[in-house]
């Protein structure tokens, strides 16, 4: 399974990952190799097999509707690259 540089760039955009243009071919090569490796899956017929999403055969737990968290904004915003007036700042979003 061979990926072109264009496809690599498309996926990189979907994943918001900047890739140096001189490395795109290398990524295409590596990823194509991995896809070849993965391709082995198609050797087996799984038409009648149920997918296993979880090793646990369990249902989702429900929690009661109660407010258990307090305001920890000061603590959390110590981690932020850019904050003003309690808001996280990002380059202007154009709608």
């Amino acid at each position, binding site marked *: 399974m061979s990926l072109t540089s264009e496809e690599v760039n498309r996926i990189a955009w979907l994943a918001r990952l900047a*890739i140096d243009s001189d490395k795109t071919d290398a990524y295409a090569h590596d990823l194509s190799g991995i896809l070849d490796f993965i391709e082995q899956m198609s050797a087996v017929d799984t038409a009648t097999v149920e997918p296993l999403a979880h090793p646990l055969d369990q249902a989702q737990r429900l929690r009661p509707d109660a407010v258990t968290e307090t305001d920890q904004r000061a603590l959390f915003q110590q981690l932020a690259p850019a904050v003003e007036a309690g808001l996280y700042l990002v380059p202007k979003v154009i709608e």
Partner: protein
Amino acid sequence: MHEKTIAELSLGLKNKDFSSQELTQAFLTRVKKLDPELNTFITVTEEIALASARAADDLLAKGEAGPLTGIPIAQKDIFCTKGVRSSCGSKMLDNFISPYDATVVERFNQAGAVMLGKLNMDEFAMGSSNETSFYGPVKNPWDTGTVPGGSSGGSASAVAARLVPGATGTDTGGSIRQPASFCGITGLKPTYGLVSRWGMIAFASSLDQAGPMARTAEDCALMLQAMAGFDPRDSTSVDQPVPDYSATLGTSLEGLRIGLPKEFFGEGLDPEIARLIHAAVDEYRKLGATVKEVSLPNMHLSGPAYYVVAPAECSSNLARLDGVRYGYRCTEPKDLKDLYMRSRGEGFGAEVKRRILIGTYALSAGYYDAYYLKAQKIRRLISEDFKRAYQEVDVIMGPTSPSVAFRFGEKSADPIAMYLSDIYTIAVNLAGLPGMSIPVGFSGSLPVGMQIIGNYFSESRLLNVAHRYQQVTEWHRRSPGL
């Protein structure tokens, strides 16, 4: 002191042979001396450790200590530790001081353990050699020209080098077992759902599990006792009683049925490793076990399935690392697109990027059925294989890794070559089963590990099986002598 196991140290503390502060200081000194070479620690938390040691000594004096009170341990840097950098081996989180503790960390703290620091690892747990860490590679103390394995390479190496008697690791495709094998120590990946994932930075959510790494099964039992058990903060955590893992360590193995999958002993297996595994199995026969061949016919598909599921889940799990609320942000982003692309492009290393790309591709429009869905179906087949095997045997044994620790750079050029070092361990994560690796000998000067795989929630039995072997052999006592 550093040659003692956790169990021995615990007894020593109780008998007042030494204090926790003395013990902690001794290990900290060892770390300062040896770690510049080995690079197992990303962050050493000296003050926290000494404060915990003081508190532990108080409890010991009052006679209110538990088995882990005052025992130095270290946490893989994948666990969030409050007030301490939690980097996950990545530039992306180099500046991330976690505002909360992972459940695993809380439980060790509650047990009175002394945290010496945060251990090095492959970036975001992706790797089998600890060569992808932002903080540089970790060296194997048995031969510093070789890798310790990964992704819990820092944990394995630190324990093997006696920088710490026990460490936590995490295992998504073999990341506890394989480094345990490469470093000649004992490591256990529990059944999926036994140990809480709250505060454990997610790689592949349906595969990740935290587990103990130490030099003996007895020590692993003590650590697992603190770690295991239901956590309401984790929806995938199982709510069932935790047995006393130490109580059944000495149970007789008479009548134990061991299965050896023929797929594990195929042509690709190094003959020296094969010899050591068979020798270990012979020890089990002497202990009263019976051995038969079993088959796990879909084993060869585990690698391909894993390398779809894990990257797919991680591509989504790592999307939150975007330079907006925490973590690395590129300098002077010119617009939103630039903020995302460059923060993530600069913050993540190459292997992480490769996996995010593969994962994104596998989930993208038109490919979901052929890749992700297909991989989940193969997961079902692999689980069924194990289920069938467990109708005939109690535990499954085989090599942990196809090779001993390889040299730096040997496999890092070709991702697939690296991925193939997980071939024996991956299936266990796909099925969610528990697995251990114990040292069973040396090939040349490098350790060889044997994998023991149990049925769901059979950790007691696994630890018992490992412990009984360790009572009649000496491999786990060998030290690289640093």
